[in-house]
């Protein structure tokens, strides 16, 4: 009975409007390169201070989930992830758009985001307290191995140039260590430059590495930006629904991965998307299509990153530990509201929590019509805008988006320079994705490695520290499978063929 009351409370006209408005605002903000989900929530959080806690949570949850989905638009249409969570969406989304299937990719992303969001919210509703303990089981060494698992995706992204991809990954890891060392506060790799002391900001780096090379190539020829079908196919909802149904296991697996990664404090949607992408590719029959426009890649990333929304709320609400950066902002807003998060929240203030969870379901479902409508508009706009207006508009968005992250003109210069370097490296077979992977996972890997090393050295059990913990061993097994599984399967398949001959 209480559940029905909470559901009805979530469906009140005010909460419905807040969920709708939040999803629209989040989607639009998330689609602009440089404006992350964290920023979307942070900018709009003051509005919630005068609201009831449940309504405030619904609005913030809706903005968050909308922003994570919105990042897919620019990832698919201009090869620039609107938010870091959409990095892996570029791998197949942009090739789909270039092949004339941008509308299909956007609809697939929308459906996948809704499925992921619903799965994440379902886990939050049913299993929040027991799942929160998973977060506590992850120590520094598990984070280190998780980052290495993310890096193992480099093998999948190597496009036949494994050594070059690994070199790019190393370059990204080195770029991530520029500035003040997180553990010991040494100034590293700045060569006396004040500009580099703050380090390379991840979002501006990925805007530069992904977007600037595309712009440089766009101005070089009079060709159209994206291939356009001879006749309009609309949003291709039925086609997308059929593909989604065929890929239902991929969607569910990726959503569960997203939820689990979301539970881990600090991991976030980008790692969730990368891990889910890696798993989707590993288990797919059409592995060679990944990176060239495989719908499964878009589905995996988008379902996983939206599942982190529900997953991230689990440690936030149960333990008071934010699962993802936007959760940290939402946690702050809840504290301002006087809501005490913690294990007792689900019993002492159950009406607030469960109204919010139902509100999150509502916002996620609303994302379907909202996402499809905005997506269609975004796609038709991108293909209709003449190149002479599209290129300067995107370039201007990269400048203002990068500046607004840390209010720094140095970040803008670094972004453009990295874009130029990315273009040159791309000409010689070094793709941007491994560099970005290294850059994003570098700080997590280093922090986990150094902390685990310090603890292992202090307890005189380094081997046990790195290789003796059950969760670590499970992740290591996944890394080995991810790196060598496809090669082994191929070799076994070849052996069988020869035996048959």
């Amino acid at each position: 009975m209480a559940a029905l009351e909470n559901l009805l409370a979530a469906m009140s006209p005010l909460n419905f409007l807040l969920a709708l408005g939040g999803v629209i605002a989040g989607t639009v903000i998330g689609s602009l390169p440089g404006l992350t989900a964290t920023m979307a929530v942070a900018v709009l959080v003051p509005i919630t201070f005068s609201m009831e806690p449940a309504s405030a949570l619904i609005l913030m949850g809706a903005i968050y989930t909308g922003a994570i989905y919105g990042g897919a638009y620019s990832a698919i249409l201009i090869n620039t992830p609107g938010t870091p969570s959409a990095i892996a969406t570029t791998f197949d989304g942009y090739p789909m758009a270039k092949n004339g299937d941008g509308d299909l990719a956007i609809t697939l992303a929308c459906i996948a985001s809704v499925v992921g969001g619903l799965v994440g919210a379902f886990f939050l509703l049913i299993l929040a307290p027991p799942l929160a303990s998973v977060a506590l089981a992850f120590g520094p060494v598990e984070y280190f191995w998780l980052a290495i698992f993310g890096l193992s995706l480099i093998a999948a992204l190597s496009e036949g140039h494994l050594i070059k991809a690994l070199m790019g990954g190393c370059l990204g890891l080195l770029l991530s260590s520029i500035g003040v060392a997180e553990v010991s506060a040494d100034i590293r790799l700045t060569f006396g430059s004040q500009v580099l002391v703050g380090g390379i900001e991840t979002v501006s780096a990925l805007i530069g590495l992904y977007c600037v090379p595309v712009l440089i190539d766009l101005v070089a020829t009079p060709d159209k930006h994206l291939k356009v079908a001879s006749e309009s196919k609309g949003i291709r909802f039925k086609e997308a629904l059929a593909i989604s149904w065929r890929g239902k296991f991929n969607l569910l697996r990726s959503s569960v991965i997203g939820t689990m990664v979301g539970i881990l404090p600090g991991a976030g949607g980008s790692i969730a998307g990368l891990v889910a992408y890696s798993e989707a590719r590993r288990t797919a029959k059409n592995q060679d299509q990944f990176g060239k426009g495989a719908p499964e890649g878009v589905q995996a990333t988008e379902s996983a990153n939206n599942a982190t929304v529900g997953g991230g709320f689990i440690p936030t609400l149960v333990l008071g530990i934010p699962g993802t950066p936007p959760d940290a902002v939402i946690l702050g807003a809840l504290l301002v509201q006087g809501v005490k998060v913690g294990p007792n929240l689900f019993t002492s203030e159950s009406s607030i929590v469960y109204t919010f969870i139902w509100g999150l379901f509502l916002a996620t479902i609303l994302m379907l019509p909202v996402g499809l409508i905005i997506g269609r508009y975004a796609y038709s706009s991108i293909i209709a805008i003449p190149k002479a207006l599209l290129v300067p508009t995107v370039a201007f968005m990269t400048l203002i988006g990068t500046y607004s992250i840390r209010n720094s003109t140095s970040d803008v210069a670094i972004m453009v320079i990295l874009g130029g370097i990315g273009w040159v490296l791309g000409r010689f077979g070094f793709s941007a994705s491994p560099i970005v992977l290294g850059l994003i996972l570098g700080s997590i890997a280093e922090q986990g490695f150094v902390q685990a090393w310090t603890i292992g050295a202090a307890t005189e059990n380094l081997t046990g520290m790195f290789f003796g913990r059950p969760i670590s061993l499970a992740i290591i097994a996944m890394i080995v499978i991810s790196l060598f599984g496809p090669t082994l399967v191929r070799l076994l398949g070849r052996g069988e063929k020869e035996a048959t001959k």
Partner: protein
Amino acid sequence: MSEKRIRDISTPFMAAIFVAIGAVVIWDTTTYTDADSYVFPRTIATVMIALAILLVLQWLIGWSPSAKDPGIVGAQSVPRRLALFGSMIAAALLMPLLGFLGTGMIAFAAIMLTAMYDPWTPYRFIVYPVAGAVIVGGFYLLFARVLQVPLPEGTWF
């Protein structure tokens, strides 16, 4: 050595650049005071140098997958590429001096001219600059007024 490999000097060239970057990183790590600071970058730089050497060995043996032919750049417009990159760098450098709005307008106009392949009809001559001004002005207002981002005002004006 095949003709193809004689032409593909980009592989050893790029490998040399990566070795140089790795060497500079290792040299920089010698100035750090704490082992926690240098363990990670030094290890990564060493691995990167090893990979670069492996790449050269692969190239020498002839196992290297063929690199993209950089000569394809010649079939496209190099000056336009350079103009776009230069415009964006100039925008980043001029921002503190001219302010964000002024820089944005100039950069937009420069990049628009760079990306323009169609003939300038009277319609385009009027509509494109107006559209540019609306886009730059609209985003400026969104960020500066609505989102309260303190965009640079400029010191020259």
